[in-house]
């Protein structure tokens, strides 16, 4: 689903984003990106969205080479990628319903199917009652669920989440994670950048650890920190 080959991204003046980064993420995988702030997690996500362009290297998303993807096709790429952010990125002037519906309006979905799909996905994320509320009227956890609903309403093959639980309390975070797991079960590839140690340790999914722009660990059923021999023995 996502292929990075020797990708280098350096910000001005020479702050490293990603360095010689190579990785493959297969269809239907559930992957955590971990690492300290500034290690390149967000850079990776923004590269996949073609919000950023790498200085060198190749990036393939769903078989398409982003380097040769025309500017006018970028919106089409993004429609196939659901996005969830730490700060939710909801349109403040639209109701919960309209925020989700916007993602469908954008792809030219007929009104009839919008009327059907939005309530469906909102009840899936447990927000059927909040349809007509505005983002500022609901809690952070609820806002994040709206954002997940918006990301998934098109049933994209890929869903990216940048610190999705960073701004919400641990219990609510579990709910969000469960939602993402359910989305993953429908066949959608899910990539989550996170600082949430407990979550990663509990879930035991594939972990990609970044440090200063390099991939330092790629573990099948990983935990948040690398478990070295001694620590493992001590446990």
């Amino acid at each position: 689903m996502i292929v990075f080959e020797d990708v280098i991204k350096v910000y001005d003046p020479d702050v490293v984003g990603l360095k010689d980064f190579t990785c493959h993420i297969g269809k239907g995988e559930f992957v955590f990106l971990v690492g300290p702030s500034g290690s390149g997690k967000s850079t990776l996500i923004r590269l996949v969205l073609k919000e950023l362009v790498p200085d060198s290297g190749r990036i393939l998303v769903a078989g398409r080479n982003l380097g040769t993807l025309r500017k006018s096709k970028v919106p089409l790429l993004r429609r196939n990628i659901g996005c969830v952010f730490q700060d939710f990125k909801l349109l403040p002037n639209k109701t919960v319903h309209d925020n989700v519906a916007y993602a469908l309006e954008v792809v030219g979905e007929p009104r009839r199917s919008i009327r059907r799909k939005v309530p469906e996905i909102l009840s899936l994320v447990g927000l059927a009652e909040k349809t007509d509320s505005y983002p500022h009227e609901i809690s952070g956890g609820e806002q994040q669920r709206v954002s997940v609903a918006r990301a998934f309403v098109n049933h994209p093959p890929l869903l990216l989440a940048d610190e999705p639980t960073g701004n919400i309390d641990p219990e609510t975070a579990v709910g969000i994670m469960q939602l993402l797991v359910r989305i993953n079960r429908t066949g959608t590839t899910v990539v989550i950048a996170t600082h949430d140690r407990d979550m990663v340790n509990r879930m035991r999914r594939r972990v990609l650890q970044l440090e200063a722009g390099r991939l330092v660990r790629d573990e099948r059923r990983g935990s948040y920190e690398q478990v070295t021999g001694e620590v493992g023995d001590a446990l």
Partner: protein
Amino acid sequence: MRFSFFLSEALGSMRRNWVMAMAAVITVFISTAILGAVLVTRDNLNQGATSLKNRVMIEVFIKDEAGPEKTQALERKIQGMNEVKSYKYISKEEALRRFRERFGERIVANLPINPLPASYEIQVKDADRVDSVAEQFFDDPTVDNDPGTHNGVKYAKETVRKMLGTISLIEKGMWVTTGIFAAAAVLLISTTVRLSIFARRREVEIMRLVGATNWFIRWPFVLEGFITGLVGAMLAAVFVWVGNWGIANWIQSSQIDFLSLRVFRMWWQGGAWPPGLMPSLAILGALLGAVGSLVALRRYLKT
């Protein structure tokens, strides 16, 4: 795409950001009202100048003893001149009738004979050529000159020339003023639009993330600019029109209309602006709003 969606997006956002929308409408209103006022004034000055030019007249007085043949010869001479737009023969009786009208019966009643000469009133095509036309009658023997003078030919020389000069200067000034105010209107409106879009740049960013194409994002903003410009400019057009109408009425009812120029003219009477001032201003405002939005959005829609 879906026009009704774009329109409801535009109207919805105007309703939500109504303070900003009001500010934009008022900005458009003020700048186009000033522009409209300048245009109306220029238009009326133009008309004033034209009517003044039309009033430039040469009077050629005829000797009483000239007789019909010589008078007719003079008439043929006038007819033959290219610069002459029209002429009119004023007989001695007509001259007396006019005199009586102006100064009253009593003075005329005491006159033993009619002392007033017959004359031709000549209108010239081009007011600037009055001199050369008048000169051609200076030495005509049929003309009622006192010996050694040309007082048988009368025309407003210096006054008219000065007035025309002033008017053409004012006209030029008005062109400059129009330009300045048009530029000011464009700048003011585009700044206001840019401000309102800056306040919503996050919104634009989110739309892009969800995969909206640039035009999908643009349309609501362009429509919003269009509506704002249209409303503001239509208010301005109505305002200018009512002001124009009020001043015209006031001038007519008071007696300062001494030049008997109709100083103010309504847009429907035609003028410098072929389709009339109101629709022109409205279209101008709407276009400014729409184009302003497009330009202001540009920097947020770079991929």
